Structures are given as structure tokens and as C-alpha cells.
């Protein structure tokens, strides 16, 4: 089932003297349950594409349709609401809320969604068990290692039961062992929760695990390889 459809997507930055075509006529689609990596050198447009997909940035042209909704037509507050219910984010620098505990960070999104305490508690416990951090439930992010923080970030991204998760260089700050562990967790959650994962990365370890590898260069898709 197709959940994301990207048509002739463009993003042009006019900020500097030189016009930069960060995303240039991209056409892509993603199915439910995909585990896809967008790869390419620095400055190729990976993060811009991810930001456009997540509705964090406005495209200069083209269209992104997520679950029959054209993201570009949504007003600011509707777009935030759309993200809350449909998209999960994992950032390179984890970006957990430092004043909240692990439990509170995970349930924060559900709180924004207006879910009941019972529902929040059950989902938080389930996710923290899945990422192996149930014993650190009351710790603040500062007390966790980078890998642990990223696992909490994955749990947070999944808490709202999104249609897909956008992960921008999620392993960039992690060592090999931690990366391996994190990827295993994400693969497991991808299998069990049938959530689509889309990574932007230039980490070979992530590319190795991906079932689809999209290569981007100068804002254009130059290859789209599916693996079994």
C-alpha cells in the first residue's frame, strides 16, 4: 500500500547570491512497512528531502501526498497536527527534551495527542521494553549514553503510532556496537509494527541493513535499488 507519493519535488534556496537547487525534480513513492535509506554525499540534498517529506520545510515546486493528503496545502497548525499523528522523527543529535525523564519523553507525544494515561503508560512500557530501556524509565537524558538516548528517540518516534518514521543520520554519533544494536531494534520494530522507516545516511552499516537504497546527488535521484 502506497503511503507516500512524491511528484516533481523541488526545493530552491534563494538565500545566498547563488541559487541552490537542493532538491531537483524528485519523483518517489514509499510503501507501508518499507525500511529505506536515502544515501548520498554531504550537500546532496538528503536532509532537505527528509525535511520536505516531514513537512518541516515548504517545497518550491511539486507535491508530496501522504495518505491521500497533499502536505503542501496544509496550513501551519494543521501541518503540525498532521505530523503529530502521521510522522515520527529521529534526529542525529537525539534531541530528547532534557528536563523530562525517559518515560516522559516517550509519552510526551501521546500527551499532545490527548491519549489517556492508561493508554500512555501501556504504550510507553511496551516501547521501552522493545528498545531495552525499561530499567532507565525514570532517568533524565543527561544520565544516558548516546546510544541509549537514540533508542529513547526511536521509542518516542514510534509512540504516536505514526505511518512512517524519518530518521536523519540516526547513527552518525554512535559507535559500531551501538549502531548495530539500534539498527536491530529498528528492524524489529519495522517488522512488528509495520512502520515505514526512511533514513538519510552515509553510514555503510545502515545501508547494509536497508531493504531499499535511494541514492541522491545534486538534488536528483540517481538510483533506487530494492533488496530482498
Amino acid at each position, binding site marked *: 500500500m502506497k503511503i507516500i507519493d512524491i511528484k516533481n519535488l523541488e526545493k530552491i534556496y534563494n538565500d545566498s547570491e547563488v541559487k541552490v537547487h537542493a532538491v531537483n525534480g524528485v519523483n518517489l513513492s514509499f510503501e507501508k512497512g518499507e525500511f529505506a535509506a536515502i544515501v548520498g554525499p554531504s550537500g546532496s540534498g538528503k536532509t532537505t528531502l527528509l525535511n520536505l517529506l516531514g513537512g*518541516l520545510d515548504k517545497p518550491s515546486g511539486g507535491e508530496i501526498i501522504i495518505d491521500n493528503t497533499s502536505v503542501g496545502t496544509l496550513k501551519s497548525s494543521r501541518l*503540525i497536527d498532521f505530523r*503529530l*499523528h502521521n510522522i515520527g*522523527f529521529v534526529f542525529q543529535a537525539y*534531541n530528547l*527534551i*532534557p528536563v523530562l525523564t525517559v518515560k516522559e519523553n516517550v509519552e*510526551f507525544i501521546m500527551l499532545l*495527542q490527548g491519549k489517556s494515561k492508561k493508554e500512555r503508560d501501556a504504550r510507553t512500557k511496551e516501547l521501552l521494553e522493545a528498545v531495552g530501556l525499561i530499567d532507565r524509565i525514570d532517568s533524565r537524558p543527561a544520565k544516558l549514553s548516546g546510544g541509549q538516548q537514540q533508542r529513547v528517540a526511536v521509542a518516542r518516534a514510534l509512540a504516536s503510532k505514526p505511518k512512517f518514521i524519518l530518521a536523519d543520520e540516526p547513527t552518525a554519533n554512535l559507535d559500531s556496537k551501538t549502531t548495530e544494536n539500534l539498527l536491530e531494534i529498528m528492524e524489529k520494530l519495522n517488522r512488528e509494527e509495520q512502520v515505514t522507516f526512511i533514513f538519510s545516511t552515509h553510514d555503510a552499516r545502515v545501508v547494509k541493513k536497508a531493504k531499499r537504497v535511494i541514492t541522491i546527488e545534486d538534488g536528483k535521484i540517481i538510483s533506487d535499488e530494492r533488496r530482498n
Partner: protein
Amino acid sequence: MKNLTIAWRNLWRNKRRTLITAAAVALAVFFSTLMSSMQEGTYSKMIDNIVKFYSGYLQIHHNDYWETRSIDDSYVPGQDLKDALNSTDEIELYVPRIESFTLLSTGNVTKGAALIGIDPEEENKITNLSQWVSTGEYLSKGDKGILVAVNIAKQLKAEIGDTLVLISQGYHGASAAGLFPIKGILKFPSPDLNNFGAYIDLDAARDFFSVPDMVTSMVLLVSDYDHVQKIKHAIQEKVGDKYSIMTWDEMQPEIVQMIEGDRAGGVVMKAILYIVIGFGILGTIIMMMSERKRENGIMIAIGMQKYRLQTMLFYETLLIGLVGVIAGFVLSIPIISIFVNNPIPLPAEIGEAYEMFGLEPAMYFSLVPKVVLNQLITVFVITLCIAVYPVIQIINLKVSNALRA
């Protein structure tokens, strides 16, 4: 976990900065509360002096009396007036007075002063006049003696037992003259009153001024100081415009003006103090917003509506102010409470300056609710203004830019 909880925790992410900002607010609140308390205490004492020592809270006169201050504008308090006063709630007591200008003389010294005819027992219930008799005795009903304020007695070089010659103008041109032995010397805590005049029995005054059964004023004691206007209107409704009813502040407009003027001066001082503190809080909020640009972007990215984030940041701004205000009150209220019960006596030179303005030479403090409430409202308004900054910042926040910050 509510916005308020997150806001409270955010506040303590940079403990030192929050404490310094809150301490600055606390210091401003401390000084401002102390200053307001001292001002209100002084004003209240000043009003007390006027009301309790002499004028009462309300007076009822002949319609022209306040303009002319003439004995010709005396009146006979009719039954309608007495009924109105008896039936008005909150009037605890009313006493008659006759007051006019008189020359007092002994030997070859003459001095002009007010001569007040009083019912000694009833008057004592309102002004507690007997407590100010420093030498001699207080008047009794039907007494033929006179009580003289201490400074007048000094100027007349008169002592207890000396006889004063009183000359004035009686009702409708009648001549008024009499001899009154000094029965007591009055020493008030207010220098104004010490220069004010002399007191005789009401009947003696009526004889002296040839105004049988008449009064120049009825002086009212009421149960609540703040309700004088309400009581005035209640009486007015009953007696119409037959009499002039005046509240203490209408009788002493110069005191009200002086208080308002002094209050305005205090407001300027406090405004400067709070503006400085306001910029301190603003500085903290600007730093906080700059440090947390990325975090705010993340919150919006994951689905937090901007208005919720704005509310949270608003709470943070408010909480800084609130912590400061509470700390300020914790410091100031116990100190003020001590001073309320123990006014600070002023050194001789400053004390003399106070006396020149008719004030007792001491610093009085007050802990009326407005002293505290005004600080609370001021800090709230300042933080409200400052809270506009994060609100605008969030409105203009571009998530993709914030994530790159």
C-alpha cells in the same frame, strides 16, 4: 505532565542564571514593598492624626459654614438630622461642636486661635482628647474652665490656674467676651494641633457666642474608614441638601494632595527600579530563547502546536517573576511586620522637618493588602510584557532553520 511542570523544570536548567534573575526581582520587590509600606504607614498615621485627633471621619455643617467659618452659620440640629444619623448603619457616634476664631489674652500677650466648644464626655469618645492633657485636668460637663494647646500656652506664657480673656464676635454681631481659667494644657503628638486652639464646655461656648442650642458642626465617628463616602450618601439621601456633609478628605484637600504628590514620587522611584529589573528578566529570556532555538524547533517538529509552546514559555517567564516576588515577600514582610509594631524614631534634625509638615517624628509602616498586591501586579504586568518576546519568537520560528541551529 502539564506545560507548567515542564516550564518549572526548564527554569532550573540553568540554576545560577534563574537564581540571579529571581534575586534581582526579589530585591526590587523587597525595596519597593518596604518603600510602599513606609509611605502607606506615614499616610495612614497622618490621616489618623487628622481624623482621630480632630476632624472625625465626617462632619455636618450649615451649607455656608465651610466657606465662611462664621459663627453666624451655626445651626440647630433638627430631629430629622438626629433621626438620619441614628438610623444610618456604621455611624458609631456623633458629637456636637461649636467652633470659631477667638482672641485669647493674658497679661499683655494676645494670640488668635480656634475656640472649640465640646461635650467633654462625648468628645472624648471620638478624639480621646483627655489623653493629651499633659498638665492639669480634663473638662467636665458644665465646666467653666478652658483647655489650651501647649504651644499657645507657651506663647501666652500662661500656666494652670491663670485666667484667659477671650474676645470674639458672637452670633449675628453680638459681642463675645469671657474669662476662663486654664484647667489643663493639651500636648498632642501633632505639632499642628499644638498650635491650633483651645477647648471649652459646649454650654459655655453657646453662652459665649450667644448661640443657644446651636452647633457649627456635628462630628461623626464611623466603624469603617473606607466607607465614608457610602455613609455620606446614605445621610444625604435622608436629609437632602439641607446640610453640608463633608468627609475628612474633603475637609483636608491639601493633605490628600500632599499624599497623592508623595505617592506619585514613590511611583517614579519604583518604576525606575522595576524597569531595570524588567530588562534583567528580558535578558534572561532572550538568552534562554537563543539557547533553546533548536529544542523549540524539535518540539514543533514532533507535533507540539505553537500556542502550547508559547504557553509553556509564558509560564517560564511568569515563574521567574513569581519566584522573585515570593522571595521578595519572604524577605520584606517579616521586617515590615516588626516595623508596623515598632515605628522607627527619627533623629532630631529629620524629626524636626517631619514636625514642620505636621507629622510625628517617626517612620510608620503599614501592611495593608495593597502594599503587597501592587508589587504582585507590577511584576505580573512586567513579565506579561516580557512574555511577548518568546511569543513573537515562536510565531516567527522556522522549524527547518531551528533544527539547523
